[in-house]
């Protein structure tokens, strides 16, 4: 399919298929970079929050820990927690944005048989926006590749 030059197509399956990324010519997800930045933001936020409140605006000398940067080890637990928290939120929302979700209404949902993708069926979908797309030829190609139940879904994207 990739070799036929299509760009706007996808394989729908009930579980992630390993090795399909390279077969489809997709690169590694870029999500990890966003999450790294999210985590770093969390570390910095926690450090500033603690440093400013403990040392700058409300210095307290308790537990024999001076109100200065030497108390840094005591700040680590919260710095760690906020790193994870921010990174986790970035992972959740980042993956949603990259996946264009939530999207409750999609042309594919019009198809009756498509609902089986989440049970035990595998689908290959080619969007009509693809420059290579033509009703007849694409259908013939899919047939040639051994496809069954080929269906044309007409709806606005």
């Amino acid at each position, binding site marked *: 399919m990739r070799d036929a030059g299509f760009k706007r197509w996808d394989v729908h399956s009930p579980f992630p298929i*390993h*090795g399909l990324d390279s077969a489809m010519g997709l690169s590694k997800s870029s999500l990890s970079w966003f999450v790294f930045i999210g985590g770093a933001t969390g570390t910095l936020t926690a450090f500033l929050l603690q440093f400013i409140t403990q040392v700058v605006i409300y210095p307290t000398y308790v537990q*024999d820990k001076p109100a200065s940067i030497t108390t840094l080890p005591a700040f*680590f637990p919260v710095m760690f927690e906020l790193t994870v928290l921010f990174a986790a939120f970035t992972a959740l929302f980042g993956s949603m944005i990259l996946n264009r979700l939530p999207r409750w209404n999609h042309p594919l949902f019009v198809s009756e048989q498509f609902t089986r993708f989440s049970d035990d069926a595998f689908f290959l979908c080619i969007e009509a926006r693809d420059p290579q797309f033509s009703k007849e030829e694409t259908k013939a190609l899919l047939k040639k590749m051994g496809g069954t139940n080929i269906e044309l879904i007409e709806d606005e994207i």
Partner: protein
Amino acid sequence: MADHGATLAEFPIEGERVEVSKFSRIILIAAIIGGIGIVVSLAIFLFGGDSQVRKSFSYSWLFACFYFFTIAAGGLFWVLLHHASNSGWGIAVRRIMEHLANMLPFTFLLLMPILLLKTPREALYEWMHLLSIGEVDALLAAKAPYLTLGFFFVRILFYAFALSGIAYLLRRWSLQQDRTGDVRPTFLARRFSCGFIPVFAISVTFIAVDLLMCLDYTWFSTMWGVYIFAGSALSSMAVIILTVTALRSRGYLGKVVSMQHYHTMGKLMFAFTVFWAYIAFSQLFLYWYAKITEETKFYILRNTEGWHFVSLFLVFGHFLVPFAFLLRQRAKKDVRQICAAAVWVLFVHMIDIYWIVMPERGPSITKGELLTIPGALFLDVIAIVTVTAAMVFLYLRSMGKYSIYPARDPRLHESVRLIN
């Protein structure tokens, strides 16, 4: 679906033998350096008299030997873990772990001069000195059942035989399988490994207590064994990675070990970098926070003058640098990057052991007058070079005797087809 990945038919039933001659240059150099070093070291130990050099050199020797002990013990840990968890991924590199674990008897052998000779022993362990001159304080008296010379040697013998024996048995079963192709050794090793793990844990914990923590008999920490174990597993994984790379660069293991194995080993190295930091931080943190004199003394000594910078170096070098470096997936999948990381890890682990042993030296030998002994760094270099050369010599020679991977292991198939 298409079957990709290697199949067993590509691997000869007798496995691959490493021709030691391909490493002959390294072995020769190691033999020469090690030989000269051992002669020099023995000369210092036997004819050093009561000199400061002899006493200082005892610390150097302990540092060098314990460094290699942790690496070999880590090798044993990986073998044990592999069998006990019934893993498949690492069969391809398991023989290397087994060889590494079988360096344990040699590390114990090398430790002998400082444990058997009276002056070096008492230079290292103040409690032994106090016992022999009869100046037993209340604290030492309270610890008497544990800190007595007889019990100390009983324990050392126990560690030596338990750890070496486990390493020997596990390799023996594995080699047996090489010859017969029987599945029983797999099950035997799995069953016994589960039972060996507690023995291993107790031995490593208490050898760490006896040889390192007791350098200052007044200090104590419940985390100590775990701390030594963390560095041990980390550094041995680095050695395994470097060994695999060395063998591959000479044309071995080409089909057996893939980038997937590097990735897995890199992840384990990363995980133990974090684990070490977690343990080290917790120990420091709890003592720093509570501020009890007899507990903080360990860290106060290591934050005095120049040691302060070594401590800081460990924070960055042993944790932050490798952490940031190995965080990226690419670093774990690229041979050059991961080998660089492995070399670095071995270096910082050496600094870690140095940082544990050496701050005790000056105050101990000079009765608190000097923090460091002038010129002793030279002795440390002699010790570490000697022991390294001896270990490299023995390790590389052990490679040649048997197939370099367990060719008839029933899980080899899984290992060569490893996908992360």
